[in-house]
Structure formats: structure tokens, C-alpha cells
């Protein structure tokens, strides 16, 4: 045990004296969390709270135009503008305004759109009631959408879906009104026929339900997503200092002594892992505290750790162990410090991309989604999501924790095997 403590003391001293390494370990991840959360929060807000700027030109000035204007204003998917530089917007200005990036989409509701719709409805009813009068030809009116090419397909789809819904709603209302008028014409005078009021409520609606109790009350936001994701990324980046530590011992000759001292190399590895796991846990606590205390100071939501602090700590510990063991393996495999640094950083970037740190795994193509299930960063992220978003407890994180621990053991096993082979060459 004394040997282990001596090796841990040595590792701690080496770490404390490497100021750049400490910077990489603590300052960089904190900056990363701040920057990524703020950036992604802006994106979240753009989509949900502040809204994307959309320009509407209502040349219709009738039911459809007003319905679209009111609907877009209240739907919460955009920030609706009807003027450019304080002046009522004109159709000929929209293309230039969108090109300049002032608006992501411009919607032009043409003059007479409601009249055309009304006429079309009237024709349809007359035709179905067997009227013989010749229907006037109705010109088709088009709602013009001018779209900035940077607009995401999904956002454009959500806007067109909303427009379709508004058109259908107005059309239904017009049909009801026209139908009432036609009935009124058919009912003899003196009868007590009273036209029914249009009731816009739907017979079939929909209800959003989340697969867990917690998620129903907590909307996923930039903090809930980014703090665990970038914390995992930073924790796995401990691979770089671990690789550096292993490689330095190789290049500075200490490994040479380890082979002949009566203490196994495994002990040195264990000491390294214990110290770096401790560092990872400190990193974790610091980064969680950013989500809990510092991000709210910038107007961001407070990080919610869910219902199981022990679950959070267990996932963090398993992640730390997996990251440390992976670092030791990369350091053992690499021939030079440069090789180790490149292999370590690139592999973490790839594993994080695959693991859903950068973009959620569910939007990846099938093949990548399958591959993502083999990324330890994905296991860790899912562990935290189970706690932070799905409201699960300790039982919910075990599958992820066990995968991380298995990864830790595999890395350690490989490291030991490679070392044994190299020692006796």
C-alpha cells in the first residue's frame, strides 16, 4: 500500500507542476461549457423563445391574411415582422431583405386570397347542392415564400405546415358560413331556423406525453443537454494528459526502472488511474457547479441533477475510470508523444461525435446510430440523460455504468498485455 501511495504522490506532484496540463484539465473544459452552452442556448431560444425573424406582407387584408398574421404571432415559432425599417413592407423589398439575412423567411399573402378561397368554397357547395348556375372561374392565388438558403429544412417545413393549417382553418370556417347561408336560403321564411355559430374546436386533438414523469415537467434546454455532454467530452479529454504522463515516463526513462524494481508496472498504472480519476471527479464537480451556479447568473436555466445524486456520482466515477484507462491504453500503444497526442485527441473527437456529444445520436443515419452505441461517451451521456432528463434513478443508470466499467477493464487488460509483451522482448 505504501508503494501505491508513493506512486500516487509522485503522480500528483507531476500533475501539480505541469501548469499547462492543469490548464487543459480545468480551465479549458470550463470555458468550453460556458461557450457551448451559451451558443446552443441562443440556438434553443431562437427556435423556441425569441423566435426566428420572419417577414409577413399581408396584402390580403381579409380573413386568411389576418389568420396567418395572428397565427404566426402566437405560434411561438418565430418573431413576426410586418415592417422593414419602420415602414410597411412591400413585396418588391422581400427578396433583398431575406438575401441580406434580416429575415429567414418572408411570407407574402396576396391580395384577394381570402376572396379566392371564399369563391372556391362557394363553388364547391353550389356544385354539391346541385346548383345549375355556371361557376365563375376562380384564379388560384399563391402565398409566396421567400426563403434564405441557410434556413433548415425542418424549420421551413414547420412554417409551411403552419400555413397549411391556417388555410385549412379559414377554409373550414368559410365553408361553414357559406353552408349556413345556403341552408338559410333553402329554409322557408318564418321558420325558426337559427344558423349555428362556427365552433373552431377540433373533434380530435392531441396530447403530448413524455416517457417519464420528470421530462413532462422539464423541457430539455441548452443547460440540461450541454452541461453533461461537454462535461463528458472534457472528462474524456483527460486522455491527453494521461497519454502525456505515460509517454514522458517512457521517454524520460522511468519505465526502464519500473521493469526492474520490485513493484509491478500495474501498480504504477493504478496510481496513475487513481490520481487521474480523482482529477476527473474534481473536473466533474466544477463543471456541474457551473451549470448549477454560474450559468444561471448569465440568464441561463439552472441545471437540474434529477432525483439521484448517487446515480450522478456513479456515472461520473465510471466515466472517469473509463477515460483514464483509455488514456493509459493510448499512451501504451503510442510510440512517441506526438503519436499519443494525435491518437488520443482524434479518437476522442471521433468517439464524441459518434457518441452524440456534438449532435444527438437519434438524428444520425442508421449505420452511424448503430456505431454510436459502441462509443463510451454515448454510454456516459445516456447515463446522465437517464438522470437529468428521463428522471430515472440508480436502477436506470446501471446498464450504462456496467458498459463503462467493462470498457475500463478491457483497456486495462490490453495495457497490461501489451506491457508484458514489450517487457520481455
Amino acid at each position, binding site marked *: 500500500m505504501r508503494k501505491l501511495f508513493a506512486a500516487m504522490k*509522485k503522480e500528483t506532484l507531476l500533475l501539480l507542476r505541469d501548469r499547462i496540463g492543469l490548464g487543459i484539465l480545468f480551465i479549458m473544459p470550463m470555458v468550453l461549457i460556458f461557450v457551448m452552452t451559451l451558443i446552443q442556448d441562443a440556438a434553443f431560444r431562437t427556435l423556441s423563445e425569441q423566435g426566428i425573424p420572419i417577414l409577413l406582407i399581408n396584402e390580403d387584408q381579409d380573413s386568411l391574411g389576418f389568420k396567418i398574421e395572428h397565427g404566426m404571432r402566437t405560434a411561438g415559432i418565430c418573431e413576426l415582422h410586418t415592417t422593414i425599417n419602420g415602414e410597411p413592407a412591400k413585396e418588391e423589398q422581400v427578396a433583398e431583405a431575406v438575401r441580406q439575412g434580416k429575415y429567414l423567411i418572408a411570407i407574402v399573402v396576396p391580395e384577394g386570397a381570402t376572396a379566392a378561397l371564399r369563391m372556391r368554397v362557394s363553388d364547391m357547395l353550389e356544385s354539391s347542392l346541385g346548383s345549375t348556375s355556371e361557376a365563375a372561374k376562380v384564379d388560384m392565388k399563391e402565398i409566396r415564400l421567400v426563403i434564405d438558403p441557410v434556413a433548415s429544412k425542418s424549420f421551413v417545413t414547420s412554417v409551411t405546415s403552419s400555413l397549411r393549417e391556417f388555410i385549412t382553418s379559414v377554409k373550414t370556417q368559410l365553408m361553414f358560413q357559406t353552408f349556413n347561408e345556403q341552408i338559410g336560403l333553402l329554409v322557408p321564411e318564418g321558420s325558426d331556423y337559427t344558423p349555428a355559430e362556427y365552433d373552431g374546436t377540433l373533434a380530435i386533438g392531441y396530447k403530448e406525453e413524455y416517457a417519464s414523469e420528470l421530462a413532462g415537467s422539464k423541457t430539455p434546454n441548452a443547460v440540461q443537454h450541454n452541461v453533461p455532454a461537454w462535461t463528458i467530452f472534457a472528462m474524456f479529454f483527460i486522455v491527453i494528459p494521461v497519454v502525456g504522463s505515460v509517454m514522458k515516463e517512457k521517454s*524520460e526513462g522511468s519505465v526502464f526502472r519500473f521493469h526492474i524494481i520490485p513493484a509491478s508496472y500495474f501498480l504504477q498504472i493504478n496510481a496513475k488511474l487513481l490520481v487521474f480519476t480523482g482529477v476527473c471527479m474534481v473536473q466533474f464537480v466544477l463543471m456541474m457547479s457551473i451549470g448549477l451556479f454560474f450559468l444561471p447568473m448569465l440568464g441561463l436555466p439552472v441545471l437540474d441533477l434529477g432525483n439521484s445524486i448517487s446515480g450522478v456520482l456513479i456515472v461520473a466515477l465510471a466515466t472517469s475510470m473509463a477515460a483514464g484507462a483509455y488514456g493509459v491504453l493510448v499512451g501504451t500503444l503510442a510510440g512517441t508523444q506526438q503519436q499519443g497526442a494525435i491518437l488520443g485527441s482524434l479518437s476522442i473527437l471521433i468517439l464524441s461525435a459518434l457518441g452524440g456529444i456534438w449532435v444527438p445520436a437519434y438524428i444520425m443515419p442508421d449505420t452511424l446510430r448503430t456505431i454510436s452505441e459502441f462509443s463510451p461517451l454515448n454510454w456516459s451521456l445516456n447515463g446522465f440523460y437517464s438522470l437529468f432528463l428521463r428522471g430515472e434513478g440508480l436502477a436506470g443508470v446501471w446498464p450504462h455504468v456496467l458498459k463503462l466499467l467493462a470498457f475500463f477493464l478491457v483497456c486495462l487488460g490490453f495495457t497490461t498485455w501489451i506491457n508484458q509483451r514489450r517487457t520481455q522482448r
Partner: protein
Amino acid sequence: MESKAIIEVSDLKKQYHEADAPAVNGISFSIRENEIFGLLGPNGAGKTTTISMMCGLVKATSGNIRLMGQDLQTSFRNLKMHLGIVPQDIALYPSLTGRENLEFYGAMYGVEKKILRQRIDQWLEKMEMGSSANRRVESYSGGMKRRINLIAGILHEPKVLFLDEPTVGVDVQSRSTIIAHLRELNAQGMTVIYTSHHLEEAEKFCTEVAIIDQGNLLAQGEAQALVKAHNCSDLEGLFLKLTHKAQRN
């Protein structure tokens, strides 16, 4: 009375995968207890490979090494405690102080804390390193690093000490200090096995030498006796006579 052999090397061979010729080509010799044994040879002669096999760092392709009467291969774990090594390259942590390095290596050998502290102080004093012991190794001169490198290999008081060119690149003062203390250790009963390019130093320091070249043992015996037997004026003359003057890579 002649002392018994502490190391017996028989038909030792090492063939590296990537090399055409064997680094060590079936050499046999023995080293008596309490000897200062010099393993001499030009660059690439096989000295470091031989010494690495003798202290268990490199596995021999064939042959046998017996250390303190035990087979090195099978009893390496038990023998480790009795071996000390001072590698050619400085094997220290540059960002730790000299004392911290010594405390770490001493602890790895399981030397009891109090005894370790005493030995460290004692050796730092002997090596005239007391005042700089708490400075980081990276700030040391080449000679200071060599001296700490030596202390790190002897804190556990091994029975056999392997030194691979311990005085390379150091000034005369440091070399003199190192040699003087190695003599002292030898006087206390430690067997010293040493490689060097300093033939004059080896001639004065070693009780017995072996000259190897291209993996073959060319001569072994007491330095002066070998010089006389080959009609040479000194060890350098003998060395050149046996290994020839062609440049080595």
C-alpha cells in the same frame, strides 16, 4: 580463497527481430562476488544488450544467466530486490526535485520510510548534493543528474549493481566523486558491473574486464594481466588490438 561466482552467463545469445546479425552471439563468462567488472566494447558491440539481459530487462534468445545461484528467467521476481541499475540515460522525473525522485524510487523498493530518509540524506551529503536536493532535477547540471541517477539505483543497497556508462558526459569532478563512491560501495560488499568507453577509468577502477565486439567475447580477465598477455602498453592499446581501428556505427 577465491570468492564464488555471483553471476554466471552461459552461451548467451540475443537476436533482435529487425537485425541481420545477433547483438550478442553466444557469450559465456562469470563474475565473482564483490568484483568490479567492466564490460568494454566499441559502439554497437552488445554491451547494453548484455547488461540488459543480465538485469532481466531484455529476454535472451537463448542461453542462461544465473544470478546468486538462481536462474534469472524463473526467479526474476525474487531477485529484483538484490539488483540495482543505473541506466545510461537519466531515468528521473525532471519536474520532481532530487529528493522527491529518491523518495519515490526508494519507496518502490520498499525501503522503510525512516531508513530511506537517512540513506537519502547520507547519500546526498556524500555526493555533495545536500544543498540542491530540493531543486527540480530539470535545473541540475549533467553531473548532478548523474549523481542523483546513481543514488536512485543504490538506495535499497543491492547486492549487484549494474551501471551502464555512469560517467558519460560528466566533468572530471563529478566522475571522480561517482567512481570514489562506487569503490566505497564495492568495499562494503556490492558487486559492480559496469560498462564504459573511458578505458583509462576502467583500467584503474575495475578488478576484472571483459572486452566484447560484434556480440562476441574477445577477452576476459584482470586488466593488467590481459594487457601483459597481449603485449600491449595499456588497456586502450589492448582494446584497439582486439577490436581494430575501423569506425563503428
